[in-house]
């Protein structure tokens, strides 16, 4: 199932002007890489996007048909659905610099 984890969403968040970021993390089960990726992503978001993001974790083992939509090959993959344009980062997100580039967070940070 698609697990929507409204992670770390403070009460003040809905009042903020910009739309929240929508991030989708594709994983295959609870592998080390999956867990690491989720942890890394959360950490990054907490620092950079606190209160303005939403992470959806998609387990492809449960919903394999969803791999087609975002053209997922590599796992883990993070897809930034919003804001546009869609951006994709693959890997366990342990390389923070590349993650920032991938999410295009350099400007805001």
């Amino acid at each position: 199932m698609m697990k929507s984890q409204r992670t770390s969403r403070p009460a003040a968040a809905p009042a903020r002007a910009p739309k929240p970021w929508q991030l989708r993390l594709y994983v295959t089960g609870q592998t080390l890489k999956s867990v690491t990726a989720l942890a890394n992503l959360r950490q990054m978001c907490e620092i950079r996007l606190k209160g303005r993001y939403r992470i959806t974790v998609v387990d492809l083992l449960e919903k394999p048909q969803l791999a087609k939509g975002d053209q997922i090959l590599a796992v883990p993959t993070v897809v930034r659905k919003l804001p546009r344009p869609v951006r994709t980062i693959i890997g366990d997100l342990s390389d923070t610099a590349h993650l920032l580039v991938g999410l295009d967070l350099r400007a805001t940070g």
Partner: protein
Amino acid sequence: MKTSRAKSPARATLLPKCPTGIQGLDEITDGGLPRGRPTLVCGGAGCGKTLLAAEFLVRGAMQFDEPGVFIAFEETEKELKANVASLGFDLAGLVRRKKIVVDYVHIERGDAQESGEYDLEGLFVRLNHAIDSIGAKRVVLDTLEVLFASLPNEAILRSELRRLFRWLKDKGVTAVITAERGRESLTRHGLEEYVSDCVIVLDHRVNDQIATRHLRVVKYRGALHGTNEFPFLIGEDGISVLPITSLALNHVASSERIATGIPRLDAMLGGRGFFRGSSILLTGTSGTGKTIISSNFAQAAGRRGERVLYFSFEESPNQITRNMHSIGLRLEPLMKRGLLRIHSARPSLYGLEMHLATMFKEIATFKPHVVIIDPITSLMDLGTDSEGKGMVTRLIDYLKAGQITSFFTSLTQGGKAPQESEAAMSSLMDSWILLQDFEGNGERNRVLYVLKARGMKHSNQIREFLISDHGIDVVDAYIGASGVLTGSARAAQNALEKAAVLAGQQEAAQLVREVERKRAALERQISSLRADHKTEAAELRRIAEQVGTSTRLLGTERAASGILRQADANVAAGARGKARPGRSK
């Protein structure tokens, strides 16, 4: 697992095979691709990798009830459907009936940012999902190498590919993986390293402005396979790999004889014509009547109720029927009754292999008893000598296997010995008839003779053949001291001979008269000599009488004078007087 093509129990214990259903490929690989293993198909751009893979899936789904998954990295589902639709495959329909799943994997180059470790589990999941959704037995990955462009980390990619092929084997699916041909290695990214069971190389070459595709099974672990390069083509109904070579000479030889349509020619061939299922070569320079003899043969077969397939590379069907009409040969009725089909194509229309494939297809659909190829030399000119010979060999093998009589005409160039120019082909032919024209007396005449006819008594005579309003007529050519004479020279020679006989008769009469005259002359001479002799004898008698008379006279004279001179002188004077009668005077 068992192969559907296993012909003997012994073979079933060998590597199980998965028939592709692609014409010719299963023959070359002796049954198909290795079942449950990946096969690598590599080749340059435009050589038909994707089509081969697609046909493998489509035929699998249609003919062998093996559903398939097509993972397309290069073409979208829509494009793919359109592309294979041009080969007459209803991919869309198969997708609707859940026989085939097409999954288009789109990855933009440099689209994804890499951050840390990852694997290609997503691809595995998709593949697995697709396979399980329809219970697929076949998988195509076209073209995996796109991954090398989009995923920068080659180390990860390589280890994942290795895992992928392992996984495919474990899954038990027969997979076809396509890859671009590399400069030095078989594939650009060395995929052959991972797929070690079967490697097929496709190639597209241009020779003399005619492009030909070739297929070669480079490797087939644990199985016999043809290692040659086989031409293949992409036709209206998919790929056909040529040849459908019979690797052995084991066709049945019929002893049935079929007439040529020209009675005298039959007579020259032991009186009964050609063997059914044999190959016949008719050689001649241009205008010697090859097409006419071919058409005659076609008509004769049609009249026996046999189907004739006539491949013409020089004339259109209409032109042939019109021309034959002019010599009283009507082909239209046979065409109308479906006994004769004329297939015309310009030789340069496409390559040798395409021609061959078209011919095979026509033969397969029309199922003729007799196939005429007029002329085979136009086709052979398209390729090199060895290709041409290879083609004829394949064609003859194919026809002989089906007990189809093949009749080839061959255009030879003037001045060249026909035996020499056709040396390559002649060994493949069972019968060989030569047409020649003789020039002389301001005219050109056709002659024909049987150069060889395997397994039958045949005439060694050169015959003249005449083409008139009512067809072909073979007549004896004049063979005499001054060589072979034909046409008006033959007529003239006949006249000449008649004159010579007449002259001889006259000469003989003359001779008789001469002898007679001589005899008469001789007789005249004899009688004149006799007359002479008579005269002389008469003269002699006269002289003798004269001498007698004078002697007598002398005696009487002397006696008289003795009387006159005294009788006493009688004794002495008688002796003297006798000795010197003249002195006494």
